[in-house]
């Protein structure tokens, strides 16, 4: 099936989200749609999937113009979509989720579970999905849930599969497996529209690349194009992808975590005997797949955890048992991993968000009095210093793009003298331009002498910033390695393999799809 979008224009009020976009997806092609957050990728796909009606332009399938009133029409025409946030019912089985909305019935009214199960098994075997049709969705890993979404689309005879930021939630290994699946699908004639902002993956898998910026197609590229070129197409200017870092000169111990264990509210041990230390002037990154205890470890350090045992010392002072406010006051800055949930208040103004933890401290507050004018003045300074792109400090934080929201959080935390800076996923959902800025600020904080604890599930980020790397797996630190440890060794450690074994296995297995690029880069 050949899919064409011709001159698609979609406006929201005065804002043009898509400006006469042309896109051609050939049969059996993996077509990557590359663009920053807010560039209009999702709008375009929503038009294609029938969720939005274009103001101008048309969708053409195999030379015939089609019109979609809703996703139902799009599915019927052979278009399948895997959303970034999965549309699965957690308490249903895989097979039940696959049949949801397109129930197989027998005798007109009875659900035909056997047929659904059979369908799942057939697709799973054909493409090497390894999915158990009877497993409950809530029990299976995120990577497998994603495959269930793909099976859903395939079960409805999708000829074109749209994958919206599919790798955002995956481990490097899972990403490799997804890439394998995409190639398998391509072999069987399914076209794939692969939406992402990760340059490395695009180059690994795409046959063709269309780059959009501010609602317009700014160019097409082939996978041979260098990352730097793709990045500058996306952003519209030259971007430095690597971070300039001075050799690190660690000073005294700032954070000492000893034998720390954390139990969740169900009593399960989620952090298990972790010991870790971070010195002033060094960046220690915690690498690991999401959900291996990093969140709980960090929350324990910043005073937000419960049911903790062990010891956490800040410059020798025990801080375990202090509350968040007291720890903030000791000079700990914290960028939480979910910025819209924990980092800022979207309905508050930028100015208010910039003093969220300092609003009752001089000069912003004294006793019961709160001084908006002083808050505003300070906000204006910080917005300038941290290059926050906003219509003004009185604009709500929710009106900012992800990257600018993150700059607000980082600006707030860095705007006071810090001993320890803890950043969880500081660049998740942040555009390339902002990533560059944020990385530079984090390195600057380290050069300034602060201890920096970075948590990231993005190996790129870990490798770019870390002086040392602690890999976490199932609540434990698998090992602490140097900042220049090879990607595939880290990947294996993230799956729980101890350092020595990981190095040996990596040497035996040879490079994977993604590490090849590292080699290229080095040459």
């Amino acid at each position, binding site marked *: 099936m050949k899919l064409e979008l011709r001159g698609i224009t*979609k406006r*929201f*009020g005065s*804002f043009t*989200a898509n400006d006469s976009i042309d896109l051609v997806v050939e049969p059996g092609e993996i077509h990557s749609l590359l*663009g920053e*957050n*807010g*560039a*209009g*990728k*999702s*709008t375009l796909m*929503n038009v294609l999937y029938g*969720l*939005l009606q274009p103001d101008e332009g048309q969708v053409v399938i195999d030379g015939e113009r089609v019109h979609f009133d809703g996703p139902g029409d799009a599915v019927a025409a052979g278009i399948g979509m895997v*959303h*970034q*946030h999965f549309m699965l019912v957690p308490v249903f089985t895989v097979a039940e989720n696959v049949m949801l909305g397109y129930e197989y019935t027998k005798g007109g009214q009875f659900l035909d579970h056997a047929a659904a199960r059979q369908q799942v098994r057939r697709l799973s075997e054909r493409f090497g999905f390894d999915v158990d049709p009877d497993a409950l969705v809530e029990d299976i890993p995120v990577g497998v849930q994603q495959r269930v979404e793909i099976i859903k689309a395939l079960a409805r005879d999708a000829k074109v599969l749209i994958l919206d*930021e599919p790798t955002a939630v995956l481990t490097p290994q899972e990403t490799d497996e997804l890439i394998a699946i995409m190639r398998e699908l391509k072999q069987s004639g399914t076209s794939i529209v692969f939406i992402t902002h990760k340059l490395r993956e695009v180059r690994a898998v795409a046959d063709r690349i269309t780059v959009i910026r501010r609602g317009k197609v700014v160019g097409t590229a082939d996978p041979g194009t260098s990352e730097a070129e793709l990045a500058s197409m996306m952003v519209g200017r030259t971007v430095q992808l690597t971070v300039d870092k001075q050799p690190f000169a660690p000073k005294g111990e700032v954070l000492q975590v000893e034998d720390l264990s954390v139990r969740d509210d169900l009593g399960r041990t989620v952090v298990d005997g972790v010991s870790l230390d971070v010195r002033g002037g060094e960046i220690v990154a915690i690498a690991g797949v999401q959900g291996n205890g990093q969140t709980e470890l960090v929350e324990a350090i*910043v005073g*937000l955890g419960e049911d903790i045992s062990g010891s956490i010392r800040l410059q020798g002072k025990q801080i375990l048992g202090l*509350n*968040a*406010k*007291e*720890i*903030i006051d000791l000079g700990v800055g*914290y960028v*939480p991993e979910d910025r*819209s*949930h*924990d*980092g*800022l*208040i*979207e*309905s*508050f103004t930028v100015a*208010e968000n910039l003093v*969220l*933890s300092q*609003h*009752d401290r001089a000069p912003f*507050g004294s*006793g*019961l*009095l*709160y001084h*908006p004018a002083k808050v505003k003045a300070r906000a204006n300074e910080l917005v300038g210093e941290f290059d926050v792109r*906003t*219509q*003004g400090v*009185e*604009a*709500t934080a*929710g*009106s900012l*793009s*992800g990257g600018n929201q993150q700059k607000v959080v980082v600006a707030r935390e860095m705007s006071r003298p810090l001993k320890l800076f803890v950043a969880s996923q500081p660049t998740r959902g942040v555009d390339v331009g902002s990533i560059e800025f944020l990385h530079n600020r984090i390195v600057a904080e380290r050069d300034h002498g602060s201890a920096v604890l970075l948590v990231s599930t993005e190996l790129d980020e870990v490798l770019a910033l870390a002086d040392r790397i602690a890999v976490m797996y199932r609540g434990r630190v698998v090992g602490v390695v140097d900042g220049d440890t090879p990607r595939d060794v880290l990947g294996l450690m993230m799956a729980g393999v101890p350092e020595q074994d990981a190095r040996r296995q990596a040497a035996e297995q040879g490079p994977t799809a993604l590490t090849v690029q590292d080699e290229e880069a080095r040459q």
Partner: protein
Amino acid sequence: MSVTTDRIPEKTPDAPGEPTSATRRRGWAGDVLITVLSIVLALVVGAVLIAVADPRVQETASYFFARPLDMLQAAGSSVANAYAALFKGAIFDYGAETTTAAIRPITESLVFASPLVVAGLAVGLAFRAGLFNIGAEGQIILGAIGAAYVGFAWELPLVVHMVLALVAAMLLGGLWAGIAGFLKARTGAHEVITTIMLNYIARFLLAFLLSTTAFQRPGRNDPISPQVDSTAMLPQMLGSWSRLHLGLLVAIAAGFGVWWLLNRSTLGFKLRAVGANPFASRTAGIDVGWSTFAAMAIAGSLAGLAGAFQIIGTERSLTGGVSAGIGFDAITVALLGRGNPFGIVLAGFLFGALKAGGVTMQARTGTPIDLVFVVQSLIVLFIAAPPLVRAIFRIRAQGAGSMQVSKGWNA
């Protein structure tokens, strides 16, 4: 921030048409417009109901096709008379013989408005702190109990007596709401449930107290307390011809106070922060539990003030029906005022006027007073469904596209 608009939808990356701050600013004016149009619409629907209920209209409708003008005239005059009476009863009785009689209605509206305003502030303040205070009714009852007891049981000099009665009402009301706040902060018990239950407890506590010798008026078997001493009464501001008492000024001052608290105090900052996003507030070192308790306690003391107004402003004695449903009207007042202190003051005035006018409307035109409740309810109903109002008046929605998408997207 407003309490009635949807939470800002969580954005997926690339979500189109993100509302900019400019559209938000326009949104504020839009809120006012929607509110005004909702009131207009409610009055229009009310007019239809008045006409339909009118016997003369029903009679003329039976021969509508023979002489349609009859029915239209009947309908027109019934609606005009009813709304004229509503206006005369609420604002200015232009047919009255004396000046005081002419302006008495507006003072009466303000009398009704005073407790509604403070109770509305109690609900609105809690809204801003992320709490649905359904318990204003119970807090009013506790406030009334406090004011009444101080008023009739203690003998104190002028001014001191009144101030102490007000303080007692605020303390008891604050305590009552504080129970719900404490339970929420400590155990996570949902305040909607606890405040509703506390309403029942307050009601029966009042019924019980009124059967005890401490509260029951000597010589009476029915549940009524002694009258409070005149030293405890809020002074009448215009003399004996009007019931308008000092409570009005207290209520307006409370409006300013709540505005100041929310926008110019560190406590208010915390309350708003916790209300808008408790997780981010906790991360920023704000004590969410304490803020919850403080918000409820302050809200309760405002509602307690409403109870005091009932006793030492107008009623003088405590009876089973002293709260008069003000605590529930307060919820609609807070919604109509959209959680904004000044909006709540204005909404309280509107509801006070409708209440005062409703009595006159019933007395002079026989229009059932229930119609006033219908109109009040319709106003809130329309406000709760802005797209409906927009559709009726064909106003273009701001950022409608993004709303649609976010629903399809994150639903």
